[in-house]
């Protein structure tokens, strides 16, 4: 076993997902199979190989620190599930 239900539950908490007991069981067995498969990468010796983050060589893209075009506030809020004046509203964070 690469992974058990307890660690899958922990990962679900990190990912802000809730899994009911049946989903947890299925997820554990599917993740176990997939993690078992990707283990094949360990057959390769990658000592001294540079990790590749992007498909083309890339450095930071800088620009002048000037105000550019951006969405108007009402546009940015148009899809908000709950908004209040110029703010997105969330459930109370601090009791």
């Amino acid at each position, binding site marked *: 076993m690469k*992974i058990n239900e307890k660690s899958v539950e922990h*990962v679900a908490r990190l990912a*802000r997902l*809730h*899994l009911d007991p049946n989903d947890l069981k299925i997820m554990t067995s599917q*993740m176990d199979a997939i993690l078992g498969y990707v283990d094949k990468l360990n057959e390769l010796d990658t000592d001294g190989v540079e990790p590749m983050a*992007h498909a083309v060589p890339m450095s930071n*893209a800088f*620009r002048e620190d000037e105000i550019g075009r951006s969405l108007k506030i009402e546009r940015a809020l148009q*899809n908000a599930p709950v908004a209040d004046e110029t703010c997105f509203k969330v459930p109370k964070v601090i009791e």
Partner: protein
Amino acid sequence: MKFHDLTIQEMRQKLRAGDLTSVDLTKACLERIKATDGELNAFITLCEDEALAAAAEADQQIKAGNTGMLTGIPIAVKDIFNTLDVRTTCGSKILDNYISPYDATAVIKLREQGAVIVGKLNMDEFAMGSSNENSAAGAVHNPWDTERVPGGSSGGSAAAVAAGQVVATLGTDTGGSVRQPASHCGVVGLKPTYGRVSRYGVVAFASSLDQVGPLAGNVEDCALMLGVVAGYDPADSTSVDCPVPDYLENLNGGVAGKKIGLPQEYFIDGLDPEIKQAVDAAIETYRQLGAEIVKVSLPHTDYSVACYYLIAMAEASSNLARYDGVRFGLRRDSGEGLTGMYQQTRSAGFGDEVKRRIMLGTYALSSGYYDAYYLKAQKVRTLIRKDFLKAFEQVDLLLTPVAPTPAFKIGEMVDDPLQMYLSDIFTIPTNLAGTCAMSFPCGFSTDGLPIGLQLIGKPFAENEMLQAAYAFEQATDWNKRVPEL
């Protein structure tokens, strides 16, 4: 009126000659969609009023002599592209009510050339899938056999072109999501070099792999579409600032004297015999057209699926953290605080495949596992890219199958996600390496299902790849066949 057998170039001629108006063309296109989409489910949203208004405007422009590359021509885009004031669901329940407040750069470029956007195409949720079965809007059906999948994740984009609903579409390709459905539906689909097309306004799945790509009924139309959307965009810092050639010029350059490599690792035992036969025949065609065929090796091919899924899932888990019920999309809140709201929203809004990938990606990035999974995969990715660069020192292009089998039946693979991932083996490596690749028809199975051929080009050598595809298309008539609908 019936226009669905015309190409973009034929439509352009008729529009300019005054034989046809964009309003008539757009109406015919909308009628064709309505007549066929009950069976196919290729569209998530139709933009009827907006399209007819844009068509009327295009007719004015044509009269005034102001024509772009796509003036008056009905086009549709995958529902992953933000389109101003139109719903963009990305095939997900979590974005069911999301109305884009802006246009993606690729969509702006289509509009600048006068395209009439008729609607948004069905897809696997957040582009995660190889069959278009993972859509909150329901599965898409293959126009050649409606019991079969169209491929994915751009299944709607491929099915719509195959069925003559629209003449060309845009999709996205993270691990084969343009090429594999193009192959299964018998159309032409191209994944440009990473950085060739702006991803601004395209809902992100795996940012180091995602690329926008066109689908069309023939190579010339596909080249035209690529020319419209390609180019540097300051709004996407991963787009590359190098000139866009005229892909239509020299399209008939041919393949005489070109070296085409056959990667030995792609011609494996698991390959469907009918696909092998069709690809072998295509190799023979290229030989007759004057290309030199040589065997090459991409030794790390067997590791590409594992490498790809680790990287794609890790990036997805990070990109999809934004769906939290705060700024847009679904919110579920039964009063259990902020974290409770996040959990309820995401659990209710995401489908099973998306959850599975977020879980695996979160695991691969989590403390204690990062080096063993994500970093390891990034190192293997370097080895895979080096394979390609080395092969391209010997040859101009690589030729391979697109998928190990023709389109499978709807429901056949849904319970076995790993098996589904393995079916992407021939398309994934090019996304990891960042090169360009395309799929176009090279035959049919005895069941009448299309078979695609893949050409892989050097980075930013789309023109050379298109020339080779065009030469094949001129020498054969596979793309003349259309499904009965």
